[in-house]
């Protein structure tokens, strides 16, 4: 599988999710749990940034969650 087709698949998955999502979800009055702090996608922004930076420095991958890591001449 070449990289172009992998990227194509990724975009197709995103598009499928976006179109198939209209039947999912909750009503506004059912958001009690989703509104909890521990249910946010990033509960601890500093820890997320620190981890992104550590792994950016030690591994050949970065980002994913956001732009992530970077900005250093890490050894």
């Amino acid at each position: 599988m070449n990289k172009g087709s992998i990227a194509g698949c990724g975009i197709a998955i995103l598009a499928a999710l976006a179109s198939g999502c209209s039947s999912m979800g909750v009503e506004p009055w059912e958001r009690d749990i989703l509104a909890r702090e521990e249910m946010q996608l990033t509960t601890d922004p500093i820890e997320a940034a620190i981890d992104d930076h550590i792994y950016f420095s030690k591994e050949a991958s970065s980002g994913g969650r956001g732009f992530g890591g970077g900005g250093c001449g890490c050894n």
Partner: protein
Amino acid sequence: MKDTKQTSVSATLAAATCSLLGSVPAAPVQAQEEPKWDFNTALLYYGEDNDRVQDLSLNILGKRYFVDDRSLTLGLTVDTLTGATPNGAIRQGVPQTFTRPSGNSAYTIPANELPLDDTFKDTRVALSAGWEQPLGRLWKTSVGFSGSFEYDYTHLGLNGGLSRDFNNRNTTVSAGLAIGRDEWDPVGGTPIPFSPMLDVGDTGNKTGTETKDVVDAVLGVTQVISRNLLVQVNYSFSNSSGYLTDPYKVLSLVDGTTGDTITRVPAPGAEGPSHEFRFERRPDDRTKHSIYTQAKYYMGGKVLDASYRYMTDDWDIDSHTLDLRLRWPVGERSYLEPHLRFYTQSEADFYTISLVDGVQLPTFASADYRLGNFDAITAGLKYGWKTRGGSEMSVRAELYQQRGSIPGNLLIGNQVGRETYPDLDAIIVQFSYRFGW
């Protein structure tokens, strides 16, 4: 005219209503709370075994809220880095001497030990600023700046994002773009790729600063699946172009039969390398694609946070990352959070452990262990609690371990059995304090 008239009519009506109710018109009540700062702070210690990299890091992230859901975020990170790092050369049965990157002195590694450059010492200051605000009822936008400053490295970047809610706010589609320009100004100059490491004081193979440009784009969908399940999927694209080589990494130049590094004699009266070492050379362009998916699942008070990332790039590196956290409430105001992370990557197509003397050099080569074939695991535990005043504190301790292997076809002669991937063990200890101001 019409507006003025309407205003005066509504003012008259309001006055009439007030007099009917027997009250005087009051000043409008502030619909939202006063602007307020939310501070996230953390003190981090990251330490690798065998006197390799140690980092003590102070992090502050302040977010100020304004009316209409607008917010300003300011970040500051100060890292103090010390320790040694593998310089890329292979082990030898005899001591090896290397010229330091500064070109001012040399260091010697004992026989059979992994060559580590212990010159590594730096302070890094990173700054960030971001502004976020809604655009109408369903759109949200953000702009930001990032800067990172080290003695030998500078990064400047701009980013922007846009998101829109759909389906009763159950679906959010977001897009982000970041551009960055980084500049290397290595201690002692930038070595010419593949040039030999020279004697102390000889800067004949060094040039000035080098730059690279980075463009990142992220496209994502966040979907509420049910009352207790939230899922996000992101596609990320990243392109770096310019100087992507590590100016401090070298490769050993070895004999094609024995695999031993070619010996070298410094100029008379000079101090210098005992063997032949060549500075590495990487391609000047790299494009990465990744798919990242994350789920948050609430299970009767406990929250599972699971994410998976697949990354591939045109250096032939593929990686998989699985990250699992389980937030487990303990009593009214505290929680425990075990964390497990699994990572695996394949090596870059130009990764090698040595260059062979007497044959044509490859176009690109690097022996940087981070471009090699390895697996990594992180295991940790976090304990967090809320104070009576509403502040939050947490401590976490984690172990990070890298275990790699060198592909058999890269080993020559005596390197078999002697050369191993420079495995890594590190600890991460962090204390965090979050408070309002």
